[in-house]
């Protein structure tokens, strides 16, 4: 199988004087599984597009240098020729599916190539088998889950029989179950079918154990290019770029006496290294101080015996949930477990089919969303959908101009709102020229105009790299402290839950399965697995080391190290 060779590759988008890629020189050997990491805007996706031959043929710009596949310049090949050598899978499966049924979707590429019918059938069979989707062959693409849809887009590319598969954040819109489905397929394609995989991904923790090589990019250049165990030798490089390293790597760096130069890439590897040490004993004894839940003082949001059904489909079953003032509640569960439906009831998007929903002690008025928005703000997953104006300042003016008559005056001025979300210097900027995190901050600022007391955050970290996500969550934390807000956060990001939530509520098939402090909930690994929730690696490690005997687990590496080191210190006293 041929190599991909990138020679002196630089690329400028039209109208930009700064190159997105700067004189890149790389060689990716056949059968390699390469992870491309880096902060947003570092050039990862552009590199993927260039390697797939879509730059400059389909994405315009100025290019220097080039990409060769097996000695042949990609620029001399047609896109359909390239796609039979190098396949590309994008982020959102919904934007990549052309047909309405699985078989037609996978057959689309080979059909376009004019191959004999028997060959098309063979390729469809093989592609579906390689992605574990044979059973879905006749299914409508609308009926598939996110993970299944992404597996179909991979199968559709595999049917072109490429030798290399390039994937640009293929799991960013997926829940943990969907993410695992896709990553498992990639692992098998690489290990069993010896396919070269180039994966652009933020979820380093979940993929690092399978990759052969890690590329860390910054400002269009590769700053780290090593096998995974050597890639994290200098954690400062990663930290300075705002790219979060795997928790097990961070843990090993904090326990050099135990790990030495062996960098664990998975929870199992870390557990195996720690088993012989005293850590297990110490963790079992007093790992995490019990964290009592705050007594319920003022209930802000209240779901009382709530049921919700769409035709014959029961989405929520007798949900009883109260959220008190000042809480940061994380609502977690697999896709389709009813998280968004539950939150939407409190905004008045729809009426429950049973029970009642109230906000600040008053029943929610269904359909009167703008009135409800005075009490509860709702940050959509795609905050871009909430921005309608041409400048940041005008965006804040939107709420002022369209405010309902008869309501009290605005609590904040536009200047105050700009200051709260730290966008004063960018007030004349077009919202769509801001970074992802800035756009989210702008959307939050726009929502704060009506001074709500609670905020629903729908996947607030999706689409952001770890560093920017952490900054955004820190911003939310500060905002909460400053304005006394109550948060209900719908998320699949368990590290965020561990670091910020005061309570986590687990939904499964429309029922509340668990509710409690994350330290306790993340200790219930078996129940969580059944609900499609995967605790953070450090929590899993804690559970694994104590064989599930601990009622609570450490939520981050700092806590884990502190628990061990405090015991160690006691021994030395």
């Amino acid at each position: 199988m041929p190599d991909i060779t990138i020679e002196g590759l630089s690329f400028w988008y039209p109208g930009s004087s700064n190159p997105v890629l700067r004189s890149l020189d790389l060689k990716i050997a056949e059968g390699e599984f390469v992870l491309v990491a880096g902060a947003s805007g570092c050039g990862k996706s552009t590199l993927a597009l260039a390697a797939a031959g879509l730059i400059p043929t389909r994405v315009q710009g100025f290019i220097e240098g080039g990409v060769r596949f097996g000695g042949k310049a990609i620029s001399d090949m047609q896109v359909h020729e390239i796609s039979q050598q190098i396949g590309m899978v994008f982020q959102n499966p919904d934007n990549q599916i052309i047909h309405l049924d699985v078989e037609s979707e996978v057959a689309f590429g080979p059909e376009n190539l004019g191959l004999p019918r028997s060959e098309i059938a063979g390729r469809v069979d093989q592609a579906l088998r390689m992605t574990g989707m044979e059973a879905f062959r006749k299914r409508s693409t609308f009926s598939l889950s996110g993970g299944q849809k992404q597996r179909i887009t991979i199968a559709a590319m595999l049917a072109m029989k490429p030798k290399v598969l390039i994937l640009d954040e293929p799991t960013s819109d997926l829940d943990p179950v969907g993410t695992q489905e896709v990553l498992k397929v990639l692992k098998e394609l690489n290990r069993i079918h010896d396919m070269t995989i180039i994966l652009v991904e933020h979820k380093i923790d979940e993929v690092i154990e399978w990759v052969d090589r890690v590329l860390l990019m910054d400002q269009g250049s590769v700053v780290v290019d090593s096998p995974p165990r050597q890639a994290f030798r200098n954690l400062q490089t990663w930290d300075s770029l705002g790219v979060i390293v795997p928790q097990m790597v961070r843990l090993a760096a904090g326990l050099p006496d135990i790990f030495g130069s062996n960098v664990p890439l998975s929870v199992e590897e870390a557990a195996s290294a720690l088993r012989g040490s005293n850590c297990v004993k110490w963790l079992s004894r007093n790992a995490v101080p019990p964290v009592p839940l705050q007594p319920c003082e003022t209930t802000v949001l209240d779901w009382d015996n709530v049921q919700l059904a769409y035709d014959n489909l029961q989405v929520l079953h007798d949900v009883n949930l109260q959220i008190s003032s000042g809480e940061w509640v994380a609502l977690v569960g697999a896709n389709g477990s009813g998280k968004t439906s539950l939150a939407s009831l409190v905004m008045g998007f729809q009426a429950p089919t049973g029970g009642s929903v109230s906000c600040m002690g008053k029943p929610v008025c269904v359909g009167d969303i703008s009135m409800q928005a005075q009490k509860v703000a709702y940050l959509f997953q795609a905050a871009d959908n909430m921005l309608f104006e041409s400048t940041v300042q005008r965006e804040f003016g939107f709420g002022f101009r369209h405010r309902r008559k008869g309501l009290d005056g605005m609590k904040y001025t536009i200047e105050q709102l700009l200051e709260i979300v730290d966008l004063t210097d960018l007030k004349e900027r077009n919202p769509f020229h801001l970074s992802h995190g800035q756009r989210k901050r702008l959307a939050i600022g726009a929502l704060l105009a009506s001074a709500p007391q609670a905020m629903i955050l729908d996947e607030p970290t999706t689409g952001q790299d770890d560093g920017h996500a952490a900054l955004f969550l820190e911003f939310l934390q500060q905002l909460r402290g400053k304005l006394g807000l109550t948060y209900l956060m719908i998320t699949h990001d368990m590290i965020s839950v561990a670091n910020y939530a005061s309570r986590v509520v687990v939904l499964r098939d429309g029922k509340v399965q668990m509710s409690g402090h994350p330290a306790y909930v993340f200790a219930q690994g078996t129940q969580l697995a059944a609900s499609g929730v995967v605790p953070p690696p450090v929590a899993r490690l804690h559970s694994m080391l104590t064989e599930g005997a601990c009622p609570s687990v450490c939520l981050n590496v700092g806590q884990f190290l502190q628990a061990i080191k405090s015991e160690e210190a006691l021994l030395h006293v």
Partner: protein
Amino acid sequence: MFSMLTETLLGRTFLGYLLMFAVPLILPALFVKLIGFQGLRHLFSYEPKDTAIHRVDPRLKIVYPVVIGILSVILNWFYVFLLLGVSLIPWLILRPSLARIRVTLTMAITPVIGMIWSQGMFYGYHPGVHYLFVFPWTIRWFGSVGLSIEGLYYGAEQAGRMLVPASASLILLLSTKPSDIIWAFYKFRFPPVAGFAFTVALRFLPQMIERVTLLQKAMQVRGYDLSKPRWWQLNQWAGYLRRVFGSIPTITMALLIQSLRTTSVMALVADARAFGSEKQRVTLQEYQSTSADRIGWGALAALVILVVGLVSMHIGNRQL
């Protein structure tokens, strides 16, 4: 009481305004109540089922609305309604879902009522026209003499002519997979791009409707009031309608930007899957002609022959 309504100026004025404005006000309300924007996704999307209509040759399903549309033009209104009856036979075989029936019927009946009403009102003044109700001078400013019988007839005829091809076209959308539509376009030697565009439009329509709903929610979350007043809160309806119409440019712009982004990815995907790279396109499924196809083609041919025969004998043809 009735004589007071029909014989006094006040009563006739009241009746006149009722006739003039009731229909245009009721129809949008009927549409929103029975379908809503979300309901539109049931109208233009494929409904997977295993019926004879689903299995029939896609080429026949493309030819069928074209042929039946032409036939509806050459027939007079009575025969057009007979043709409409014929065009309902595939629907009986198709057995669509209740949601689909509700949406389709509402979408069909709403313009039909509108068309009959408008023709009844604005058929114009001709000698020999009979009026069910003549407007008093207090409403003549609206430009209508009254509600005419001939106008209502003409409206019904036009409605039938509109319903026949609409009914036939929806059969194609409901029962044909986009891949089969592309195949049929290819077999007809139409440009494959046309079939592809058609397919992508079908694929994205439900998503676009979802996006509009999402954008409406986002505007409301930002404080834009789109809550509907109760029917008796008459003083609030004008403001509500103003806000609804005022939201259209904002939503359209956002929708346009999002759609452009989505289609650019779709274009990359189509290129990457070699769309348009070969002149000769092969399909995985080669359509095998069945007895249902032969019956379908035969029935369509018989219908054409029957209509042409009738028209050539000056039976059922339009009076020009």
